[in-house]
């Protein structure tokens, strides 16, 4: 205040020569709620622009006729439900997503335990190595798998031949192809489960295991009575997240089998692409891609509600 010009907090009204620019900026900064919204606005714009708008638009598209000239409400959905080819896609998508997630979770759980028991610097090296499948762009690594599955020249069949075994048409028959796409998805997604479960394992206090050991629990009992209940929330959230992502998987099937043989490996995403983009029926393609939305949304609601309730109960 020595120079007679400085404006102290709460004194603005008393100063005869206010500096409007600084004053209004300060007043603006003091309106915390508005300021907070402003700071969040890039995120809000991103979520609205890249998630709400496309989702809403897809929903709108799914209710149009083929020429996109009039509303048909849920006709596209009812038509799809009556079609054998679409029922096969539903079956394949469920088989793909559920079995891939189960194996990813199991493999991730085992890897996380192995990792957890490696002490010191080595753990970081192994952790880094095991994360490689997850960091390579999926389209590129799937191309490598495509070469590996090649019936004539692949390393896999060459190895089989070396042992005197007949070569396997990995992508040639329906069930072989279904299993192959699941294997590639498990290979790609297991590191994510591993890293999540490893973090969860590290957060279980060592003393709980010590208390359980003294209480009389062996290794299996410690797993079922301590580790699994303590990791329950992380397991549920990763499974839910992975289920949603796996249901929406596109790259693997598109590159490995393109839905074949005999449409035996189509998933919602690849089928939606075929119907919507390649066959030019965009509204029906949108309907295919939205088909699982209500089921997954309900699942997410119940799982997250359970996780929150449980979290409130146990976190100290």
């Amino acid at each position: 205040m020595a120079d007679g010009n400085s404006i102290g907090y709460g004194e603005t009204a008393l100063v005869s020569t206010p500096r409007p620019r600084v004053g209004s900026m300060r007043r603006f900064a003091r309106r915390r709620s508005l300021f907070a919204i402003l700071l969040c606005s890039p995120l809000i714009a991103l979520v609205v622009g890249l998630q709400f708008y496309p989702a809403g638009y897809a929903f709108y598209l799914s209710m149009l006729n083929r020429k996109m000239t009039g509303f048909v409400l849920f006709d596209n959905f009812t038509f799809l439900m009556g079609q054998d080819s679409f029922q096969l896609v539903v079956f394949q998508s469920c088989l793909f997503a559920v079995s891939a997630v189960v194996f990813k979770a199991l493999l991730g759980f085992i890897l996380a335990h192995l990792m957890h028991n490696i002490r010191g610097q080595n753990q970081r090296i192994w952790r880094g190595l095991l994360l490689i499948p997850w960091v390579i762009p999926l389209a590129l690594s799937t191309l490598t798998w495509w070469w590996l599955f090649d019936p004539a020249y692949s390393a896999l069949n060459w190895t089989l031949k070396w042992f005197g075994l007949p070569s396997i048409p990995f992508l040639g028959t329906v069930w072989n192809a279904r299993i192959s796409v699941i294997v590639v998805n498990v290979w790609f997604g297991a590191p994510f489960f591993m890293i999540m479960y490893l973090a969860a394992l590290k957060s279980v206090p060592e003393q709980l295991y010590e208390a359980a050991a003294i209480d009389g629990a062996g290794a299996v009992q410690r797993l079922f009575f301590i580790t699994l209940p303590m990791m329950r929330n992380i397991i549920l959230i990763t499974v839910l997240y992975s289920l949603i992502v796996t249901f929406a998987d596109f790259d693997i099937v598109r590159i490995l089998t393109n839905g074949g043989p005999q449409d035996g490996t189509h998933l919602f995403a690849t089928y939606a692409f075929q119907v919507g983009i390649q066959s030019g029926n965009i509204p029906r393609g949108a309907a295919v891609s939205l088909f699982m939305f209500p089921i997954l949304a309900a699942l997410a609601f119940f799982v997250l509600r359970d996780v929150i309730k449980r979290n409130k109960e146990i976190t100290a």
Partner: protein
Amino acid sequence: MAQVSIRKVVKAYEGNVQAVKGIDLEIADEEFVVLVGPSGCGKSTTLRMIAGLEEITSGDIAIGGEVVNDVPPRDRDIAMVFQNYALYPHMSVFDNMAFGLKLRKFPKEEIKKRVDDAAKMLDIAMLLDRKPKALSGGQRQRVAMGRAIVRNPKVFLFDEPLSNLDAKLRVQMRTEIKKVHQLVPTTTVYVTHDQIEAMTLADRVVVMNHGIIEQVGAPQELYHNPATRFVAGFIGSPAMNFLTVKLVSDNGLYVELADGTRLAVNPARIDRYKPHAGKTMTLGLRPEHLTETHTNEKPGTAYLDATVDVTEPMGMETMVHFFIKGEPVCARVDPLTVAIPGQILRLAADMSNMHLIDNDTNKVV
């Protein structure tokens, strides 16, 4: 019968760092033994070796006469209470307490009876349905104790169980633990860094420092007859005063303080101290043995004048702090004594309770 025998037990970590350096300790059946010492003295490691949570590098640990070096924790028939309780957060209080019994396949009625009895004893019967999160620190500690009690083990192990509680609750729980031991007399090994806890709870206190046992004895014995400088300084609050003195033999035996004041050694101790005459030693004197003067002092009292630095009125007594040639000294005087900072106060030193420490060996002579 569950005596615990620790024989020449060593615990070494990677890089040959020895946490416990070959200790021997016999704990009798139903005895309450407290291991006390500063952080890193090896007391918790010792307890964890008894529990089977740490491997023994060399030596033997026997429980009830049976060497348990290679016996896993669950087969040692022990129960442990941890510092941060280690309650299973996803289980109710009942399930927490029943967990050990369920794993040992006790019949349901027996489990319920034991949990109910323990809950009643610990006053947590109304909390059995709650999860640990919904309990206060003191209640959690009771549940942890309940979990140990229901098992009716051979040995109770306590690892700093009261450290996470506030001061008032700590005193209350201390009494509870003592009461539980009286109701269920079981061999108990209790680890703490708090010497008051050690003194109040123990039948015998084991003072540890740098991985060795400094002294084992009843609380009063450690207090009045410490064997080493460490024990003398560690046991007692406020701590014993240590003053550099010279033992002078000049028409009687005296300890000469740094400022030249001579305090006469109690005649009963002259023969004990005489061989050390002429040496520079450390005089140990507890604050309560340095008090205001009285008209009829008991024999063996010596006097010194102190320039008061700070006074701390505690209600029952007043602590007077002063320095003798840079060495801090604390005296415990009657609250009615006039002690004004900056002024001289005449104090009486009860030399019959003095301790003389050899500076080379750090042992009390």
